[in-house]
């Protein structure tokens, strides 16, 4: 048996695909091959299970042990890892969960959020824009101003009140989350070294998406709907102030 054939046989055993690797093993000290193989078979599942429980601990808390462990087992048995990075292995779990438990909206969105926070944790660095640069712009520069956003920033529409869910789970006490509500959005980014998320209005989400696609700030001001007593330009100014405060903006082209 060639080395490659032997390795495929052992790998098949570990992944649960059967095979005849035990025929190629000895049993020193009276410990048989099955007992020895079990160490690797078990370690594979334990390692990936521990990874997913740590990476999605709030999703786990929300779903409870039975539903979460069943989902993890299904993921591990049907999705062998294809890369060296354990972190990459966790990346597809939220999409798998969405297909596996399609009615669990809170869990699906929590898993997405936990993954986004993890990506923000060690995503690319960028220096926040100094607000003084904006103070120096003349009217013509404002008309053509475009912003670059922190490379970790992602925006997503959601239905769950993720802030309340997150805080409730972290408290460790029983809680009743608000009902699902279509039209919510969340943004995730890193400020300094700390990942953050914030629930935002649909208007803010749309504004961020348009600016991230390259729209100028002037175009945004012209298109933003008014919000109660606030006119579109004031509203855009308020959003810009919050983004600067949150260190979302890292570049200015004006």
């Amino acid at each position, binding site marked *: 048996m060639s080395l490659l054939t*032997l390795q495929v046989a052992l790998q098949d055993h570990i992944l649960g695909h059967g095979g005849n690797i035990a025929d190629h093993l000895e049993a020193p000290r009276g410990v048989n091959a099955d007992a020895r193989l079990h160490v690797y078979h078990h370690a594979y599942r334990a390692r990936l299970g521990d990874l997913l429980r740590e990476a999605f601990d709030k999703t786990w808390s929300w779903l409870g042990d039975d539903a979460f462990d069943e989902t993890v087992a299904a993921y591990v048995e049907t999705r062998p890892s294809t890369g060296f990075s354990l972190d990459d292995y966790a990346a597809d779990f939220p999409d798998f969960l969405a297909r596996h438990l399609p009615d669990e909206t809170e869990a699906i969105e929590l898993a997405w959020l936990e993954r986004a926070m993890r990506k923000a944790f060690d995503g690319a660095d960028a220096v926040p824009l100094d607000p003084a640069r904006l103070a120096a712009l003349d009217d013509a520069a404002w008309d053509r101003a475009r912003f670059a956003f922190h490379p970790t920033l992602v925006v997503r529409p959601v239905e769950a009140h993720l802030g309340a869910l997150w805080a409730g789970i972290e408290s460790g006490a029983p809680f009743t989350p608000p009902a699902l509500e279509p039209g919510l959005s969340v943004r995730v980014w*890193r400020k300094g070294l700390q990942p953050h998320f914030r629930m935002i209005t649909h208007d803010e989400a749309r504004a961020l998406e348009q600016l991230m696609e390259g729209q100028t700030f002037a175009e945004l001001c012209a298109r933003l709907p008014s919000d109660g007593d606030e006119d579109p330009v004031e509203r855009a100014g308020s959003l810009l102030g919050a983004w600067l405060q949150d260190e979302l903006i890292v570049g200015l082209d004006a």
Partner: protein
Amino acid sequence: MTQSDTNIPRRPGLTGFGLGLRPQHFPAFLDSPPELDFLEIISENFMGEGGRPLATLDALRERYPMVMHGVSMSIGSADGIELAYLHRLKALTGRVRPAWVSDHLCWTGVHGRNTHDLLPLPYTEEALAVVCENIRLAQDVLERPLVIENPSSYLTFVASEMTEWAFLSEMCARTGCALLLDVNNIHVSAVNHGFDALEFLNNLPADRVWQIHLAGHTSNGDLLIDTHDQPVPDPVWRLYDAACRRFGPVATMIERDDNIPPLEDLLAELEIARTVAAEALAVGVAA
């Protein structure tokens, strides 16, 4: 870089006592950096693009010499090693400027699969040829000699034609690589496979041992399991004493991978290592 027997790279000057850097200890290291001769980082923990891991790495690199330890090279894979991984590792060496780069005598997967485990090899001529070819490729890409750690294992292959120590010795001779001796792994494998740990130690090429890991393990009743989640037990301390007498001063560290205790506990354990080494080396010098 292909080495011949007459052009074996010599050990860099790094010796002394260090620890493996773990994320749980980032705040403690930054707030009150302990006196250590070096830090070992897990290479894969610092392959992100930015954020806290790399910021912490840069800050600690200002203070400590470092070595890089990986778990993903898979130098025993019969279908070759992943070049993309080697290039990411190479980029990290540019940032860390480590004294050396290490990985394990093992394979993690074949045919595009990864078990994320350090799987054992049969000790055959074919496996030796595969390992040496992969080490040469890695050394060419990294432009430095590799340091290879002995694994702990639970399987004994019918096909094996030589002992693990003969395999390691020949691997060093053929490629110019060096050894990271995990003393706990020697003990675990010796018990699981029924060989003499001292015979293992005494048949390694002493000039190729560049680093030593100390760790603990657990028992599942039948086998010792290399969990690296316990303090260093007495049999491993005794084996470390023998290793010090045989190999002289070698860069030594406590390697804890799970059930991570407070940093002070690991520093206290490292003090034991200093004492064991000092006593063993004093005897060695007197002898």
